[in-house]
């Protein structure tokens, strides 16, 4: 029974997802253009250096902000701590590129900060005294404040499972609050924090919108530029190869660092529910201020800047086909979530019932789509389709298939699928790991068919995991930019593409309206589902 239809469907799914990776790797040895020579002598080092600086700085900021806030809200009670618990995730609703627009709008010469100062203190040239958050620093801030929630959510979940015994241990040893945080709490939450940081790392290396807006040359924009402006796909693929290598080594490092230590969550004996410590006076105030500042900078600031612009330039509100944008965005979200969930369920189940080594390896490889920047994925996809069409389909005498894949909803969703497959696959996998294989065996003994076991037993068990995955995918797709930009059909815009297009035409105030809607819709998603994101217990 090892090679049944389940096996073949999961095999096929893994293969589709692997296409772009294979495309990137196979073109590694092709000839590059002159551009490569020029670039090698001038900017290649800069690309690598910038990517590295960006990565390290973002990791630092997201670590400090994410674990700091997670620690405060999980261990202490202070004014607003219940509110911050979920409000801090709202920063997810602001993609880095919208954060970048806000930073520029506020701090540029004659920007919002200038207006505020002028209204407060009268006419003067304040421009010289207003700091400029552009370039690399602007990009670091934009990405950090948008992504720290990954670290926050995972660190918080891990802190919640720390037993009171652990904290008592610190107390008995006479540790200060800081020392027990540093020596006990942080190390035992390490796998969760590292998992959060590796998500941040991948998103940072893949980041396109904000980095492009501040025109910073990173490996990702370098790939894009060498493809767009120098027609040098081979070189673009070669940089991609280095980027992938970079990302894979991050994976491996993370795995290695994890293997050295064993981490247990004691759910039965020895677990003592933690009592939150109530903070008073100065400590309570400091905790409140820290959380509030982070909440303000990461969420309220971009929200108000976009809101202010919408009011200041209301004509942009009336010019926009908001209903169309809303339905297009929703359409992509629903379609992609359905496709991702269904196929990830099939491949997970296929893996489970066929228990085949090759398949396991293949599906582990296939989840690396998430590590490939969207812009590269889109390029690799177009390259592959064009090659396939020119060299195979046409040779066989069939009509071109390009239109089916390029500039169609089908192609768009297919590439979303490749990009976000790992989110769905891993989410369901971790749900499946909690269902003991003996449950399946008992079901078979009771005369259940494979399909019935799947529908009547697995699906109900997986319901919560599925919901969580749908939220993650939805948020990703609402914010997604490069794939949508490159592959969408005629007359098809989303809030994200409209904001990007306006911003790239120096019409930042027109970008405010779609940005505002994007933030509001994403916030709405987050608020209605925050209890799943923040679930206190893993059943």
């Amino acid at each position: 029974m090892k090679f049944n239809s389940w096996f073949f469907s999961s095999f096929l799914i893994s293969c589709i997802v692997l296409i772009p990776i294979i495309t990137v790797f196979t073109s590694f040895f092709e000839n590059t253009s002159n551009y490569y020579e020029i670039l090698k002598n001038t900017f290649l080092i800069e690309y690598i250096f910038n990517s590295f600086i960006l990565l390290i700085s973002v990791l630092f900021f997201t670590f400090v902000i994410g674990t700091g806030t997670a620690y405060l809200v999980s261990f202490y009670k202070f004014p607003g701590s219940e509110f911050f618990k979920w409000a801090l995730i709202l920063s997810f609703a602001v993609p880095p590129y919208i954060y970048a627009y806000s930073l520029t709008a506020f701090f540029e010469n004659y920007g919002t900060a200038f207006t505020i100062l002028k209204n407060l203190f009268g006419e003067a040239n304040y421009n010289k005294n207003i700091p400029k958050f552009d370039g690399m620093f602007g990009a670091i801030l934009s990405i950090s404040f948008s992504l720290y929630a990954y670290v926050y959510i995972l660190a918080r979940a891990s802190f919640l499972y720390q037993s009171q015994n652990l904290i008592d241990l610190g107390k008995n040893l006479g540790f200060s609050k800081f020392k027990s945080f540093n020596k006990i709490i942080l190390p035992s939450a390490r796998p969760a924090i590292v998992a959060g940081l590796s998500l941040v790392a991948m998103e940072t290396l893949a980041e396109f919108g904000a980095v492009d807006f501040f025109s910073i040359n990173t490996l990702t924009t370098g790939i894009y530029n060498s493809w767009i402006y120098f027609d040098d796909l081979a070189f673009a693929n070669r940089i991609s190869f280095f980027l992938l290598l970079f990302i894979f080594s991050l994976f491996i490092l993370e795995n290695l660092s994890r293997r050295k230590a064993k981490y247990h969550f004691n759910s039965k004996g020895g677990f003592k529910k933690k009592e939150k410590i109530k903070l008073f006076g100065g400590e309570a105030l400091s905790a409140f201020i820290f959380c509030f500042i982070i909440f303000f900078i990461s969420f309220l600031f971009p929200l108000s800047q976009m809101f202010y612009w919408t009011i200041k330039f209301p004509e942009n509100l009336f010019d926009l086909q908001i209903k169309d944008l809303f339905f297009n965005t929703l359409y992509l979200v629903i379609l992609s979530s359905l496709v991702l969930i269904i196929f990830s369920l099939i491949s997970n189940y296929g893996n489970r019932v066929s228990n085949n080594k090759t398949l396991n390896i293949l599906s582990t490889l296939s989840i690396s789509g998430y590590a490939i920047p969207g812009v590269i994925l889109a390029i690799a996809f177009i390259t592959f389709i064009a090659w396939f069409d020119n060299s195979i389909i046409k040779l066989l005498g069939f009509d071109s298939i390009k239109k089916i894949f390029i500039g169609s909803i089908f192609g768009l969703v297919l590439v979303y699928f490749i990009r976000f497959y790992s989110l769905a696959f891993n989410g369901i996998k971790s749900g499946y790991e909690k269902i003991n294989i003996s449950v399946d065996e008992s079901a078979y003994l009771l005369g259940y068919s494979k399909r019935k076991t799947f529908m009547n037993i697995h699906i109900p068990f997986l319901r919560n995991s599925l919901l969580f995955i749908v939220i993650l995918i939805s948020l990703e797709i609402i914010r997604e930019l490069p794939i949508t930009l490159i592959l969408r059909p005629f007359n098809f815009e989303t809030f994200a593409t409209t904001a990007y297009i306006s911003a790239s035409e120096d019409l930042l105030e027109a970008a405010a309206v779609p940005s505002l809607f994007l933030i509001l819709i994403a916030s709405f998603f987050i608020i209605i589902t925050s209890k799943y994101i923040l679930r206190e217990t893993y059943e």
Partner: protein
Amino acid sequence: MRKISIFALIISLFISTLAIANEVNVFNARHYKADSELYSKFTNMTGIKVNLINGKSGALEKRIISEGADSSADLYITADAGRCGAMDSKGTLQGGLTSPAIKAAVPKSFRTNKWVGIAKRARIIYYSPERVTGAELSGMTYEGLADPKWKGRLVIRKSSNIYNKSLVASLIKNNGKAATAAWAEGVVANMARTPTGNDRAQIMAVAAGEADIAVANTYYLALMLSGKKGAEQQEAAKKVKAFFPNQNDRGTHMNVSCAALVKGAPNKANAVKLVEFLLTPASQEHFTNNTFEFPMIDGVSPSPLVVNNLGLDFKQDMKTKLASYGKNQAAAVEVMTAAGWK
């Protein structure tokens, strides 16, 4: 059954509305509100639906090239002659924009048979009248931007910007590659800051005192003066003045927004109709009053904001063929990159 119905749902979600036959497909890298207003007007007049795919020029070009002969693109509209020229040199365009209406409307140096200019802009120098004297500017040229007297006083965009590429391409055409390479090094040495921001940000840097001169396109100042960017920027715009370089020789560098006819265009006749429509006096007036560009055709006046603040009587460079911008594009990038122009 449930599984089947879910699949049916997915498939039905994929099926989009059937194509309307009478249409024209535009790959559009110009995203002004004024343009979409014109497209609706065109549809109302002719019944031809204008399908748009918006994006930055580079990505749109790549899609046209990847789709090859199967591309659905009829017209490619972008705000830089260099991009139209580059598409031409890659063999992705076809001749056909040769109707009498087009030929009568557009001067020869602003069109080929594959692409035509639809609105003009000049890339000029902005200066602070407080810190720059008339004597310093007298006889100023683009070549003069490399003069050491501007050390630490000049702001200009990044080298990746298409307007800069076309400007540098025109310099290569007129002065040669070696001279332009030396020029680029001089410009980089004069920069008041590492290039950042768009054209408007360069003008504001002069207004705010970060630099004394800036290079930017003409319509940005008018846009700021119009108040469409808010009261602060309107005030800021009044602190800078426009200067048209190279008045004593070939004239000021001109660029165009251009419409190019894509090879294999499925709706070629409609595409030509749309271009002709964009060149009518009414459409040209719509451009000048909303995007503050210069009209492509005679008999239409630029917006009063442009006329009053930038002046109309300047010598345009009619000698350098716009087609050379595309041809020298790669050399321009090479020259700027080698000079360390970020």
